[in-house]
């Protein structure tokens, strides 16, 4: 096993799937010769050529629709959305077309496509380059939503997403890109819809996904020093959701903190707490807690730390429910 950063895990997952299946192609802004704005497709253009690594004009709406159309006739597009914030101009073909084709056509078609979106704050890039919009897509029937927290899961989940016959929104947090993890050399897949316990604990369950899992793990390490054993549940997939792993963890710990980088109202943290309220309320020893962003757009530069949850916020959230 070698260490690999998250960025290369994504690149190699695409490369392996493109080698395995000639129907897989990548499309997005600057993904060709330049190798992507974040370097996620370095080397792919030279290896596969312009038709399989397609640079597009700045036309997110049309190339998202293009992917849906190509998927309808059996190709397996991977769409790169350079900053997840840009996906708003492509909501229509993704949520109204790709997500609904199969159902609206009575099951006559499949729409196998992956939308890789670079999301999240941490770069001080302000209101249009920093958002975490996962909840918008979880709300849409027909879509799957995946958010890995490290290189190992990123590679296995992306390969599984590419092989999935449904449209998958695949979130890549920008702060994760340089983070290294052991990644096996032989092929492996990580199935969609299964959470992972990233740290075992008995006192409280911290549920998170994407970059916030890293924050939760650091918070958990610090909490251990003051005698609180936190279990960190990494959801990995938000839709489909691994309800059992969440419920089992809460049944064990009796306490729940959910961390998300997005603002609270109608966010995914609310969904997790709702699930636990409906199915494991009797196991809770304290009211559950959301640790989320402040309800405001993202400001520029260092100001973003006033908006998004910090490690200290997770710690105080846990202390509150463990009081």
């Amino acid at each position, binding site marked *: 096993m070698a260490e690999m950063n998250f960025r290369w895990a994504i690149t190699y997952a695409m490369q392996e799937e493109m080698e395995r299946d000639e129907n897989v192609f990548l499309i997005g802004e600057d993904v060709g010769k330049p190798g992507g704005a974040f370097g996620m497709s370095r080397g792919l253009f030279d290896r596969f050529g312009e038709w399989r690594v397609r640079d597009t004009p700045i036309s997110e709406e049309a190339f998202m629709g293009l992917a849906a*159309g190509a998927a*309808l006739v059996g190709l397996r597009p991977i769409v790169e959305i350079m900053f997840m914030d840009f996906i708003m101009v492509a909501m229509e073909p993704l949520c109204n077309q790709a997500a609904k084709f199969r159902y609206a056509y*009575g099951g*006559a078609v499949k729409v196998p496509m992956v939308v890789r979106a670079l999301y999240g704050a941490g770069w001080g890039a302000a209101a249009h380059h920093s958002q975490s919009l996962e909840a918008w897509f979880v709300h849409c029937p027909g879509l799957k939503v995946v958010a890995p927290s490290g290189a190992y899961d990123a590679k296995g989940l992306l390969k599984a997403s590419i092989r999935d016959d449904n449209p998958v929104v695949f979130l890549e947090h920008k702060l994760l890109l340089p983070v290294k993890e052991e990644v096996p050399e032989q092929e492996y897949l990580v199935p969609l819809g299964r959470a992972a316990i990233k740290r075992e604990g008995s006192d409280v369950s911290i549920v998170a996904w994407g970059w916030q899992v890293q924050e939760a793990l650091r918070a958990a390490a610090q909490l251990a020093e003051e005698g609180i054993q936190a279990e960190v549940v990494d959801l990995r997939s938000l839709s489909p959701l691994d309800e059992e792993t969440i419920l089992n963890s809460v049944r064990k710990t009796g306490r729940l903190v959910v961390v998300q980088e997005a603002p609270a109202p109608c966010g995914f943290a609310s969904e997790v707490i709702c699930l636990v309220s409906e199915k494991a309320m009797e196991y809770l020893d304290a009211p559950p807690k959301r640790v989320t962003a402040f309800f405001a757009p993202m400001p520029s530069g260092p100001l973003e730390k006033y908006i998004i949850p910090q490690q200290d916020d997770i710690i105080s959230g846990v202390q509150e429910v463990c009081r």
Partner: protein
Amino acid sequence: MARELTKEKLLELYRLLVLAREYELLLSDVSKQGKLPGWIHSALGQEAAGVAAGACLERDDYLVPAHRTRPSQIAKGMDLKLLTAEIYGKVTGLSKGRGGEMHICDPGCRILGSGGIVGQVVPIALGIAYAIKYRGGKEVVLCDFGEGATNTGVFHESMNMAALWRLPLIFFCENNQYAEFTRVDHHISVKDVATRASAYGIPGTIVDGNHVTATYQAVAEAMDRARAGDGPTFIEAVTYRWSGHFEGDPAKYRSPEEVEEWKKRDAIPRFRDELVHKGILNDDLVREIEASVKRQIEEAVRFAEQSPLPTMAQTLTDVYA
């Protein structure tokens, strides 16, 4: 290159034209009688454009239709029984009764991508055309939409990419003079919609959409270009919507005189007279065609009426593959 239209082909076009007309009339009737669960966006009056486009496509070519494009779908070969069952909301329909008039799909006929959002069929057609060229295929995609769609951003984005990559795509615009309740000159900044193609270096052709063979030849020429690898063509088929935006729309936004004026340019008597003049059609044949069309529609309606509605369990499937 203009196609040689054989006597058989001309008679087939005439039959399809009558079928498309009678079918729209039927839907209008049953809609008024409250027999349909959803809306009807009638193509009455503009059938020739769609019939020409659908009939010109070969079996392996793709049609990406919009919400007022039954004539092209029927002419491409869609099964009338399955289409009718769908519009009646029956489980035997093309989309198991859940798609309704706007979400019609027939992969076997290579008719894919229709929906209820104006303009959004265009990038879907772009994607199918991309897939064809990606695989080195020779098929062509025809996207059938109205002039209203040419005001969406995604239409322009798609034109640009289709031209950039020389995709085998025909932008077939049925200019029926009205986008919902508003006349074309209130919404479109240019006199001829086809001039929009020039911004992307795409040939833009204007054709009389109420003339079935003229439109057919324009589509044939665009198909030749596409198959030769010369990229997309935009065709503006100028026609007129006799009905309102939807069945039941009183269409008070236009004068009865205007409608009457356009009805004088009805494609059916024009084409019939042409064929009679050429000695291809006569009164007996006309009656025979009308009778066979009537039988075909009756059979489709019978199938739809006798089919069951979907159950709850049948309605909850296929959200995911």
